């Protein structure tokens, strides 16, 4: 066992176990018991997450809290995290209690099974970020979708079947290709150990195929344009908490996959296919933002905005430099919080009026002033206002890609204009304006439960915006590892600054005052 750990205690296994036990316990429980079990389980996991973060040794060993147990030949129970995984686990355990809170009153039928599904999903999501064995990762990665199918398919809206079917079909295609690629890799490298694979050099020719196979899976999960169409339907049909966790954590699996597998394992192929990723990301930013502009359904609008934000993630990842990579990680964290919070905000009014039609609302600033404040904060964070979490990630990612290509940077930066347009247009129609519908005008402001969900999210959004160092520090070294791995292969930037005169001053230009 290497790296720091909590007195040799298998904390990662415990974090997987707690929700699993909760899931089993709540399966047959009644509604009141089940939601209490779920809340307690997720809060315990959150507490464990805090312990995990606190005992993580920044700048220490690359892989910490490692656990290892050979289950049977060729398959190992092997866990361990680096800083990248740490922050994503923190995001997961932070959002889960909020999801349980969001479901508190709105889930009535088959509540025991509902909470069981959620808790199972938490186990599997944490499993994805902790797995150090390729197949363990695969199982967690794919199985994590099963509870999501169930949540959409059973507790979703009117068109839930179509939505979950679409979700299934898309992800299935990608998974199959990725699995085949994994088999080949394990054969070639002789190990399924992820840290080893991250330093293994695959033949350049094979890399391209492997990259594409993984890309098929990650691009769908991300989702990247044009394989994004499952997301709006899934979001629209999912119950509030389902949307929160989908936007908050599940969409991050694609990005995690890129930074954990595609970039370090296939650096040459990543560089080779970078223009493809750039092209799709540019298309996503412009196209899905424009689509978001004409939506009438609040959730669909935010879902399309998610696609645009995720494109900023891929742009940052394929900028091949520290700023881009760190930026995309911060975008992932920030989007997890902000999109989650926005779906939560939609849920608040959906619970009251049972419609997602934008036009049915209006003038909420009058009868729900505190709600309006939170919604404004999250809207601004989504737009990327400096001082909120949204800005830091977006800024770093775009700054990163600018060093590679000014065209890509220009096109993707238009997202700040379009993002402002669709989000403010939404805000204007829902929160501002006159009260035109009596039922919407009669909605009460946030209750205590809703305050308890909104305040932590708002606090972290501001924290990440004003002092992102807390989040950047744990992953700095691990990002640097990835960066070094891809540095040799990275394409040359288009700026190619030429300095005419021989100037000793240029050398000290980097030195900040």
């Amino acid at each position, binding site marked *: 066992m290497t790296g720091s750990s909590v007195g040799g205690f298998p904390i990662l296994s415990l974090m997987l176990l707690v929700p699993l036990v909760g899931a089993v316990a709540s399966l047959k429980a009644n509604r009141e018991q089940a939601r209490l079990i779920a809340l307690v389980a997720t809060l315990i996991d959150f507490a464990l997450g805090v312990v995990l973060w606190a005992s993580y040794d920044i700048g220490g060993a690359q892989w910490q809290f490692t656990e290892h147990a050979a289950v049977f030949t060729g*398959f190992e129970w092997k866990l361990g995290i680096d800083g990248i995984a740490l922050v994503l686990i923190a995001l997961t355990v932070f959002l889960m209690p909020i999801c349980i809170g969001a479901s508190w009153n709105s889930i009535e039928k088959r509540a025991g099974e509902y909470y069981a599904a959620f808790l199972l999903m938490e186990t599997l999501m944490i499993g994805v970020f902790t797995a150090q064995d390729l197949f363990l990762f695969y199982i967690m990665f794919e199985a994590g979708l099963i509870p999501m199918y169930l949540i959409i398919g059973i507790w979703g809206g009117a068109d839930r079947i179509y939505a979950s079917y679409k979700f299934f079909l898309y992800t299935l295609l990608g998974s199959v290709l990725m699995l085949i690629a994994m088999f080949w890799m*394990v054969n070639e490298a002789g190990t399924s150990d992820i840290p080893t694979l991250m330093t293994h050099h695959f033949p350049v020719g094979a890399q391209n195929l492997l990259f594409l196979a993984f890309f098929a899976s990650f691009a769908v999960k991300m989702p990247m344009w044009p394989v994004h169409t499952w997301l709006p339907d899934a979001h629209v049909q999912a119950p509030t908490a389902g949307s929160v966790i989908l936007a908050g954590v599940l969409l991050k699996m694609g990005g995690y996959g890129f930074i954990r597998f595609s970039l370090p394992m296939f650096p040459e192929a990543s560089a080779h296919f970078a223009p493809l990723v750039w092209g799709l990301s540019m298309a996503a930013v412009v196209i899905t933002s424009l689509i978001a502009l004409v939506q009438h359904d609040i959730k669909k609008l935010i879902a399309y905005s998610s696609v645009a934000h995720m494109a900023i993630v891929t742009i940052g990842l394929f900028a091949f430099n520290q700023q881009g990579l760190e930026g995309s990680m911060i975008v992932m964290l920030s989007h997890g919080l902000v999109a989650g919070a926005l779906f939560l905000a939609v849920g608040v009014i959906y619970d009251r009026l049972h419609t997602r039609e934008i036009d049915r609302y209006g003038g909420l600033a009058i009868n729900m002033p505190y709600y309006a404040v939170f919604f404004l904060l999250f809207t601004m964070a989504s737009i990327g206002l400096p*001082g909120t979490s949204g800005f830091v990630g977006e800024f770093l990612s775009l700054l990163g890609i*600018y060093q590679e290509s000014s065209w890509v940077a*220009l096109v993707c930066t238009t997202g700040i*204009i379009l993002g402002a347009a669709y989000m*403010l247009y939404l805000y204007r129609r829902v929160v501002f304006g006159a009260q035109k519908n009596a039922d919407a005008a009669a909605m009460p402001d946030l209750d205590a439960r809703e305050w308890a969900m909104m305040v932590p999210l708002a606090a972290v959004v501001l924290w990440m915006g004003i002092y992102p160092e807390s989040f950047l520090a744990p992953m700095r070294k691990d990002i640097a590892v990835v960066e070094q791995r891809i540095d040799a292969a990275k394409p040359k930037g*288009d700026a190619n600054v*030429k300095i005419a005169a021989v100037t000793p001053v240029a050398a000290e230009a980097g030195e900040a*005052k």
Partner: protein
Amino acid sequence: MSSSILIIVFLPLLAAIVAGLGNKTLGFVPSKLVTTGALFISCALSWPIFLSFLSGDAHEVVVPVLHWVKSGNLDFAWALRVDALTAVMLVVVTSVSALVHLYSWGYMSEEPDQPRFFAYLSLFTFAMLMLVTADNLVQMFFGWEGVGLASYLLIGFWFRKPSANAAAMKAFVVNRVGDLGFMLGIFGVFLVFGTVSIPAILHNAPAVLNGSTIGFLGYRFHTATVLCILLFIGAMGKSAQLGLHTWLPDAMEGPTPVSALIHAATMVTAGVFMVCRLSPLFETSPTALGFVTFIGAATCFFAATVGTTQTDIKRVIAYSTCSQLGYMFFAAGVGAYGAAMFHLFTHAFFKALLFLGAGSVIHAMHHEQDMRYYGGLRKKIPVTFWAMTAGTLAITGVGIVDVAGFAGFYSKDAILEAAYARGTELSHFAFFMGIFAALLTSFYSWRLVFLTFFGKPRWEQSEHIQHAVHDAHGHDDHGHDHANDHAHHGHDDHAHSDGTAGYHPHESPVVMLIPLIVLSIGAVLAGFVFNHAFISEGTGEFWKGALVFNEHLIHAAHHVPTWVKWAPFGVMTTGLAIALYAYIVNPRFPAAFVEQFAFLYRFLLNKWYFDELYEVVFVKPALWLGRVFWRVGDIGIIDRFGPNGAAWVVKQGSRAAVKLQTGYLNSYALVMLVGLVGAISWVIAR
């Protein structure tokens, strides 16, 4: 100085949080006291800093606050920088803000949402102070966006009004177009310099950028030109320069104190501040400076032409602001940064004065903003009249060469002389544009005064006045909001032959008059008192390198031909004479003129059709494209041939598959698991 700057900047933030969160629980008076008090303290602390720079005692200080972002070799922190340039902005921002806070006690006294209003005002002030104290480009961008947020919230303060919401959104989105340039500019600066620290960039700019080229969008340009023009696009958005100006007139939907603070004195001058702050960088690119000169000159001309036809008192002043910002930019463009800052300084006082004066008129006229329904107010609201007159004397630049004059006389003439003295083609273009705009400025400013305060009352046609009269007589049973409702035509049954409709305007309360008087003093004296510090030869001492101070240009500007020195005076009196003739001597003249030049009039009245153009070129196509990408792209193509197509194939395939997509989710899950187990078994067995 380091502790006082912390208080100056963060006290308004604290006040905004207290007033904003406390809101109605806290009550009206406490929230107003907290915010206004905070601003007066900030103001009181700012003047000593400014005066110590003026006396030459102070040196630049950077006060670190908190680390912000470190990523690779990118590293920047929250820090407050104070130098001469910041000191000028500090007094402008805190003084006008404090006075506007005070003024709002009176102006907003009937408003049920006062704590929110004052919280926004203080929040704005905080963001603006962060902008002017920025030590790196990213913090400047923070302030930049922060003031944008506050502006958005304040323009949309009356959020029940659709027009206010539309204007707020437009302001934010149009500004974001500029921000696109600003952001790319920051990226480029980091790429070239490896830092976003302003002093480091400025220090290295001449050496690094000299003869340097950069690839941008597939072409190669001079590095300095690319960087400066990108950054300047940001400035164009914030400072409402031609092309990105369309939000500013609409921003007049906000309450008038907001217009005075944000859309006249402070926020809109942020672009000018930025160019001056980065002046050593801009100096490395004559092309970029030429662009700045051209945009500034074109804006000052364009906005002045439009200003002559508007009838809404606030819109006239808004276009006037736009035009004056153009002056500041071409001053910077020709290299007279000191003059640009000086005009920014004087303009802050007299333009805030004009707006607050207009607010006082609007207050007296029961929310009526259309000057066609004013007239004869001179005797009714004498303090406002004199304040507005002082403002008008200042903006039109009344003064005698080599003797003395009002504020605008010093700053505007300095700009025009510098433009002439610079001696390039573009600077001469700017000079003539500036002279012509000065003529128009004089005309529309006096037109405003004459229409408002002179002649006979024309109040009876105003719906607002009619409502007021109804209210006063207890006839009003509509129970509607006067500010928001144009729909009701309560026709007047009190026929008054004097055009007053029986309405009696009252002078504003004393809390509104104090700011007017203070600003009037500023408008009269600011130029006379401070011109030596800002623009005389040898005042590099004052700036201490905070901006590029071109001694040669100042020297040349002082020795321009006599006709150049007298030209502003000539056009100013001409404009006054035309206004006097058209609106006092022969009031039928404007109508006749409009009839004669109907096309020109419509062109100007419709603001050169910019809004219509943008609607056709940007807004409509964006929505159309959005619908096409959605309905045709996503649904028609991707879904049809993707998942739905797959479903169709499967449907044709077998009955089993038909069952599969009838939606038993458990069976999907089962399939999935079975597949997984199979796969794993295969691995193990192999």
